[in-house]
Structures are given as structure tokens and as C-alpha cells.
């Protein structure tokens, strides 16, 4: 445990500002991961001939990315101006990069999901949808990992201590979280015989997430406190417990339908807890000047 550091501040006020983002953003971090992972599962199921896994994964991806876009627009200070995001393409702005990734991902996911209903589509569309389903699904799968990973850069590219100091591990933590969430959703919605890839993806996701989280704890320095204390601490502990429970359920009883449903739900809940936990921990690290002043003094070589 790091001893309480002494530091000076201006009436205890924050130095950096916490993001003005509300619950929309951690919800998006969760949903974006779910969408990205599900797009991968959908394409894999398509190619390997698992129709139920394909259909449900494509629909999950569409639902999750639809809600994501709604959350992202809702969080803007001027929602009516959301199209201004498309004025420029800036590699220095992870939000701009993300906008363009989503601009490609959203329609691809939409077409892949629509292809599931090709038989019920109006006659002129039927052939097109049947033909477009696979390429669209594969395009979505190509962009899915980017959707799941870029959100880590989005929050790390700030002066928010917990998010910035975790920039090396957060992408791995986030893709792990995306894998276990989408795997969990597959286990929840798809009968056991077709859900094998979902189970394996979930197991891999849990292992990657736990490893990345452990590594991040050590590179965060004193900001690691924000992952242990208060509401974020509670969420992170819940996330870990649910992930481990989901992992155990998947490994030992994943072929039992009811156990698979319970494990899948636990994994989804775990991923949501992770995203909200990381979000609130960052907000807290910005509000307390300690996490800005102490590490900066230390790297200037004037630590007390």
C-alpha cells in the first residue's frame, strides 16, 4: 500500500477537470465492446455454418451499436450538431477516429442483420440481401476489434490520471471485456450445441481481462487507489467476482443450458461493472488533485 502522500493544492480544488460525460459513456464502452465482439461471433458462425449463433450475434451487434449511437448523440452538449463529427478526420483525436470506425461498422452490422430477414424482405431486395449478408458480416468483423479497442484510447488520451496512466493495459482490458461480454451474450441466447465458440471466446476474454487488470494496477501508481475505493472499487470487485463466476460456470457447466444462461448473464454484468468502474475511477482521479500533483512532482524529481 502506498503511504498517504503529502501535497499542496489550491483549497483542495481539482487541477484537471473531470470529463463532463454522464452514464451514456460507460454504457457505450460496454455496448461498443458487446457489438464488436458479437460482430466477430456472427461472421465466424456464418463461415462455419452455425445459423443460430450467426443470427443472434448479428442481431446483438445491431442492437448494441444502435443503442451506442443513441447514447453517444445523447451525451453531446449540442446533440443536433452530431454530424459535425464528420467534418474532419483527425488521427490525433481518438473520438474522430472512432467516429469513422463506427461510420463503417454501423451500416455493415445493419446489412448483416437485415440479411437474416432476407426471406421476408420485399422481392426486389431479397436477392441483394442474401448476397450482401456475408460480405457485410465480414466487414463488420474486420472493424469489430477496432470498435472494441479504440474506446480504451478514447479515454486514455486525456489528462485524467487513472485513464491516462493505464493507457498501456486498458486496450487489452477492454478487448478482454468485449470478448467475455459477447461470448456471454452468445451463451445466453444460443443453444448449447452451437455456442461452443461463444464459450471459448468468453473464457479467453476473462483470462485476458483479469491479466490486463492486474498489470494495470501496478503501472497506475497511486491512481490505483481509485480502482479500490468507494463506488468504483465496489464495481471493480463485483466485475471480478462475476467474471470468475462466469468463467467457472462456462468451464464446468457450459454445456448445461441453464448454467450457460446464468454464466452468460454473469459475464455480461461483469463487463458492464468493469466499464462503469473504470469510468467512475477516472472521474474520481480527476476530482482529487492528489492524483495530478503527487505523480507530477515525483517525475520532476521534487517529491517530498
Amino acid at each position, binding site marked *: 500500500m502506498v503511504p498517504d502522500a503529502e501535497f499542496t493544492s*489550491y483549497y483542495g480544488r*481539482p*487541477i484537471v477537470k*473531470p470529463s463532463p460525460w454522464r452514464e451514456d459513456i460507460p454504457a457505450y464502452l460496454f455496448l461498443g465492446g458487446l457489438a464488436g465482439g458479437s460482430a*466477430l461471433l456472427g461472421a*465466424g*458462425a456464418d463461415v462455419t455454418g452455425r445459423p443460430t449463433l450467426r443470427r443472434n450475434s448479428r442481431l446483438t451487434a445491431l442492437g448494441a451499436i444502435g443503442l451506442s449511437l443513441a447514447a453517444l448523440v445523447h451525451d453531446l452538449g*449540442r446533440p443536433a*450538431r452530431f454530424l459535425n463529427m464528420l*467534418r474532419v478526420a483527425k488521427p490525433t483525436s481518438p473520438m474522430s477516429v472512432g467516429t469513422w470506425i463506427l461510420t463503417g461498422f454501423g451500416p455493415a452490422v445493419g446489412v448483416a442483420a437485415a440479411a437474416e430477414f432476407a426471406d421476408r424482405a420485399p422481392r426486389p431486395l431479397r436477392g441483394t440481401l442474401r448476397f450482401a449478408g456475408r460480405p457485410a458480416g465480414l466487414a463488420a468483423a474486420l472493424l469489430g476489434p477496432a470498435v472494441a479497442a479504440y474506446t480504451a484510447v478514447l479515454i486514455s488520451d486525456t489528462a485524467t490520471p487513472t485513464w491516462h496512466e493505464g493507457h498501456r493495459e486498458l486496450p487489452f482490458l477492454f478487448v478482454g471485456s468485449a470478448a467475455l461480454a459477447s461470448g456471454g451474450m452468445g451463451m445466453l441466447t444460443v443453444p448449447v450445441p452451437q455456442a461452443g465458440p461463444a464459450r471459448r471466446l468468453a473464457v479467453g476474454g476473462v483470462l485476458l481481462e483479469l491479466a490486463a487488470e492486474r498489470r494495470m494496477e501496478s503501472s497506475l501508481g497511486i491512481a490505483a487507489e481509485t480502482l479500490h475505493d468507494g463506488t468504483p472499487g465496489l464495481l471493480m470487485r463485483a466485475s471480478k467476482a462475476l467474471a470468475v463466476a462466469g468463467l467457472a460456470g462456462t468451464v464446468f457447466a457450459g454445456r448445461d443450458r441453464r448454467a450457460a444462461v446464468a454464466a452468460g448473464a454473469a459475464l455480461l454484468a461483469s463487463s458492464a461493472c468493469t466499464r462503469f468502474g473504470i469510468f467512475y475511477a477516472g472521474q474520481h482521479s480527476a476530482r482529487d488533485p492528489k492524483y495530478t500533483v503527487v505523480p507530477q512532482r515525483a517525475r520532476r524529481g521534487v517529491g517530498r
Partner: protein
Amino acid sequence: MSQQLHGTQPDPAGRDVSAAAGWGGQKRPRVGFFTDTSVCIGCKACEVACKEWNAIPDDGYNLLGSSYDNTGGLGASSWRHVAFIEQSAFTEEPGTVSERGAAPSDFRWLMESDVCKHCTHAACLDVCPTGSLFRTEFGTVVVQDNICNGCGYCVPACPFGVIERRTGGKAVKNNGIAQKCTLCYDRLGAGMTPACAQTCPTESIQFGDIDELRQRAAARLAELHGAGTAEARLYGHDPSDGIGGAGAMFLLLDEPETYGLPPDPVVTTRDLPQMWRHAALAAASLAAGAAVSFLGRRR
């Protein structure tokens, strides 16, 4: 156009800052502020002049219980902020006061007029996804009110906690979008001095070309050190610091954090290339993991 995300610019005087932003032949000498806190009297005329000239809405009439400071900090509707610090038994180099023949005092005021730093490497500008934030021909950093969609990304990106999304409801001007000091972009265009510097009665706030301000700051520091004020130091003047040098530099009489300033600010985008590399690796891991998940036997 190659863009440098951090480090010392080729021309520390800063003319290349606006050139790198694409101004070409239209670029002007980079301008900024030197705020000498040793002569600040805490009159807050800068806060008032800024509010008046820029037609900034009020942001509450609160008593904060922090000496004479009831503004609190920089924000969407406070583009200048005067900090008041009351110090008793402050540490001064032994003997420095008595050399001047004054009686040693165990109390002092610190007052400092804070403002947007108009960084050489500005995180707010780097992360802005709409292009609303831009580098002017004067090397300053300004929000275009009609472009900003209030995504709020610049707010946590700023290492100084300067820029903020304005709240207050639809009746308030520029509600919901990011707001901060423009270094009076409109006045600069007309060859005028920014309102805060124009009104400052003690010349604590000085406006001018960056290279000249750096010389003035160094001269003032030498003068104060010569007079025995050993605790005087410059802040934001060094082109090799984490933000490539500020467009608004300060002379302080205590540690930066005492005034609510970060001790060693670094532009977050310095680490962005590394972040993208890690994210690419993580994305590849996810893709590979998903592929492997499908390798198992059917059923």
C-alpha cells in the same frame, strides 16, 4: 504536413506554430501573456474586463470561503481567474528579507491571475473531433462556437483544467459547447491588446510577442532574485517542457500546485502513438482469439 505531437518546436520563438497549422504566408508573430504575480494586487479587473468584453454570462454569485476568491477556478464562464492564497509562516530563504531592511513577516498574500495557457502542443486542439478548436494565425488556440457540438472531449484532455462545457440551459449563450479564453481573438485582429492586459493596473498581465515576453520574464526573474526573492520562479516559459512551452507564462512565488497549477503538465497526445500501437495489438488479439474460438470441434 507533418504534425509534431510534443517536444521543442524548431523555432522556439513560435512563429512556426501557426505555420504548422497551415497558415503559411498569413502567419503572424505568436503572441501571448506574461503574468507577473509578484505585482498582482488581486483587484480582479482582469476578470471583469474579460467578462465584459467577451459577453460571458454569470456563473453564480457564490461565497466560496477561499479568501477573496469567489470565482473558484477557470471554466466555461471564467476565462480569467484571480487566485488568493493566504500564507502564514511561509518559508523564505534565511536573511533575504532583513537584507532589504524590512522586518520579517510571518504572513503574505499570493495573488495570481490565471488564464488559458495557449499551449504549443495543445491537447484540447489535438483531441477535438469536429475541428472546432483551431490554431489561429497568432499561434493561439480558439473554439469556433458555431462548430463545436459539445462532445466534451477537450475538457478532460486539458492538463490545466481550463476548458469546460458551458451549462445553464438554452437561455444561456453558447450553452452546451466548450468555452475558454480566446486571447481576445477579435481584438488581436484589430491590432488591439486583449481586454485583461489592457485593464491590468499594475502590468501584472503583460501582452506581447512570445519571444519578447520570454526575455521580459527572464529579466524580471533575475531582478527579483537579485533583490533576494529567491522563491520566484517562471512557469510555462520553457519550450522544452511537456507542452512545448505555454503561450501564457507566469512568474510565481511558490510551487505551481499552490496556485492550482499542475507541477509538470504534459500534453496527453505525447503518448498517443504508443496508445494506438497498444490498441492495434489488443484488437489483433481479439480477432485472433475469436478465430481460434471457431477452430474447436462442431457440437
